[in-house]
């Protein structure tokens, strides 16, 4: 089950081909779309500080939500890598708060002025923190093994990490604000960077490069793929912020970089939400399918047990009544002796009949009938018909085979499926008793339908089923045969439905009946219902 869970979660699922193509396409579109901006990138947009709080709020919310979802993923999956990544998102998200508050000219009205260097210092810390988290993530990602934490302790760990992060962000804020004069001189003035700043983007770009390389080498999950997109967009962002815009704050290039930052922050969130929704829909579908299968099986079981009960209780009731009658005849002395004898003979006959029913049930559920394997249905049909050959000969029935080449194998139990085919064939032979001998023809056909189903048809030239009795014949089969075993069709339908197939009857050309059943093709991990109840 562990492998199953891993295979569905975003942190372990392999990306689809569509996602593999979509990721580079998005990057290419961004680069091409932004190229025209380059010549005008350095034009400053005076007064756009007012947009900054909105931008900061958006980044904050997006990164916090991403962090929460990743933490939830960690609690479910308990791989440390996801915890590191989530904390990376939390840290960069929280650092947006002091960054925006300290941004020169934005919150002047509130009397906040934390010094020239604070904003740049916080910004560069944010820059460094995220790629470091991604690199850490990529390095420990492949470590597998038993889950080291229970769910409650994983949740407690998350709480501890969050508190630690909050404390760290608090400390950073205090240090950068109070120790403003001790910070390295990154800014020349409120708009322009100092010479030292040039070291920041270069280092950050190098870190992005390392992160991309590690993700590329280790990357195989959906999350890895989109993290690569995130890092790539961040790289484009820093290029715009620091080089294209010449490091001029609030210029066109600078704002383009900011928008890129927002896109990059949202990427993982969008992927997480999309994957979650799709998973949820898939889950709902499979639960519904499972329920349908179970209900079909339950109703088949009920019908089967009712049929067995009826088939056994009928001769038993006959035996009891015969025995009572016999006793009464014996009471009448020699007069009733012949009658008593006849009653005893009927008891013997009915006892055998009840025994046959029980033996039939046992044959259906004998050890080995639960095994499911890949089967060649044509071979099954030939084996089953071999068993009916004597019967067909005795009734002077011609048997015609029309078996398709290249049938896909089906999943099933050979004993049971052969029983289904021979039951249907025996019924057909039985049904043609009243027909003139030259016209007695039994044809059996196999076909592929809908690419993944095999369909078998058993057709006779008998009188067919009376109108309106087609469905009834599956319930109370005993009605059409005076001495039959009665369970034939009910069994057939039960077995076929347990194999995930369907059995029904229709009117054949001419007058006879045509019984058809379909079975799904063999699948390695076929989720077929098993006999034992869920």
């Amino acid at each position, binding site marked *: 089950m562990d492998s199953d869970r891993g295979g569905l979660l975003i942190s372990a699922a392999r990306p689809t081909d569509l996602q593999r193509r979509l990721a580079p396409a998005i990057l290419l579109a961004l680069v091409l779309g932004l190229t025209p901006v380059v010549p005008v990138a350095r034009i400053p947009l005076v007064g756009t500080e007012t947009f900054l709080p909105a931008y900061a709020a958006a980044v904050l919310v997006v990164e916090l939500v991403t962090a929460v979802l990743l933490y939830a993923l960690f609690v479910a999956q308990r791989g440390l890598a996801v915890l590191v990544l989530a904390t990376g998102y939390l840290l960069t998200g929280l650092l947006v708060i002091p960054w925006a508050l300290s941004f020169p000219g934005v919150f002047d009205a509130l009397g906040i002025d934390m010094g020239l260097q604070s904003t740049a210092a916080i910004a560069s810390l944010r820059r460094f923190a995220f790629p470091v988290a991604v690199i850490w993530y990529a390095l420990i990602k492949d470590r597998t093994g038993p889950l080291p934490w229970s769910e409650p302790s994983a949740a407690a760990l998350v709480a501890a990490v969050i508190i630690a992060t909050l404390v760290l962000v608090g400390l950073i804020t205090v240090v950068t604000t109070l120790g403003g004069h001790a910070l390295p001189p990154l800014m020349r003035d409120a708009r322009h960077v100092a010479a030292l700043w040039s070291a920041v983007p270069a280092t950050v770009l190098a870190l992005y490069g390392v992160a991309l390389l590690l993700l590329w080498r280790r990357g195989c999950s959906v999350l890895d793929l989109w993290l690569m997109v995130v890092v790539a967009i961040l790289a484009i962002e820093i290029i715009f912020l620091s080089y294209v815009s010449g490091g001029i704050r609030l210029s066109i290039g600078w704002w383009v970089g900011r928008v890129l930052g927002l896109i990059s922050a949202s990427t993982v969130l969008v992927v997480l939400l999309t994957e979650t929704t799709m998973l949820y829909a898939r889950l709902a579908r499979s639960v519904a399918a499972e329920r349908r299968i179970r209900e079909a099986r339950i109703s088949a079981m009920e019908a089967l047990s009712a049929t067995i009960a009826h088939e056994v209780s009928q001769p038993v009731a006959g035996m009891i009544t015969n025995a009572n009658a016999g006793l009464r005849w014996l009471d*009448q002395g020699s007069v*009733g002796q012949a009658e008593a004898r006849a009653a005893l003979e*009927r008891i013997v006959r009915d006892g055998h009949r009840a025994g046959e029913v029980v033996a039939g049930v046992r044959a259906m559920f004998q050890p080995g009938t639960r095994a499911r394997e890949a089967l060649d249905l044509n071979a099954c049909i030939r084996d089953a018909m071999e068993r009916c050959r004597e019967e067909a000969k005795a009734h002077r029935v011609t048997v015609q085979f029309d078996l398709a080449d290249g049938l896909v194998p089906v999943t099933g139990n050979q004993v049971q499926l052969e029983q289904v085919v021979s039951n249907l064939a025996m019924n057909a032979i039985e049904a043609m008793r009243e027909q003139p001998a030259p016209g007695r023809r039994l044809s059996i056909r196999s076909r592929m339908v809908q690419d993944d189903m095999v369909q078998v048809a058993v057709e006779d030239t008998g009188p067919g089923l009376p109108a309106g009795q087609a469905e009834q014949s599956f319930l109370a089969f005993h009605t059409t045969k005076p001495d039959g075993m009665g369970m034939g069709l009910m069994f057939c339908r039960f077995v076929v439905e347990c194999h995930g197939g369907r059995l029904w009857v229709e009117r054949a050309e001419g007058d006879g009946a045509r019984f058809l059943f379909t079975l799904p093709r063999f699948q390695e991990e076929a989720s077929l219902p098993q006999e034992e109840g869920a």
Partner: protein
Amino acid sequence: MMEAETGCVLIVDDDLAMRESLESLFRSVGHGVLAFASAQAFLSEVLPQRPCCLVLDVRLPQMSGLEFQRELNRLRIQIPVVFITGHGDVPMSVAAMKAGAIEFLTKPFRDQDVLDAVHRGLTMDAARRQALIDLGALKDRCGQLTARERQVMALVVAGQANKQIAAALGLSEVTVKGHRAQVMRKMQASSLPDLVRFVDRLSSVD
């Protein structure tokens, strides 16, 4: 008692084992038996002119036992019905009893239960037949009366005295006495209460 013993049990059950065993059981206690494999076979047969009781399986091919019971009611074939079933449920038995069945037995049943039920059915049918026969005889007797005698009879059973009847019909009291004696003789009534009972029974049918 005697008429019940010589009655005929009709069996409708598609199962050979049940049919044969029931037939033997009923014959062992002296009933006549006719067995049928389906409702259709039953309906195509002329029923014997003696007390009958029908033992009917609920589960039958084509027409179910309950449908068959409704069909009998529709055709006004009055015959007591004893249902037997392999798996009786309460709604089914309620429906059968409402439609007039006298018993609803689940297979396998005790022989005494089915014999008792059938005996009850035969007795009921015998009584019904006897009532029909008596009524026919009364009608015959009534048919022998003249129009004047019928008028006199109606007033007599209404409790009027000869003098009142004579006044009402414009006859002499002696003539009324003569008519009255004729009525008593033709109707084979030995007393006035007898005559009242006969007239009552006749009028309840009309």
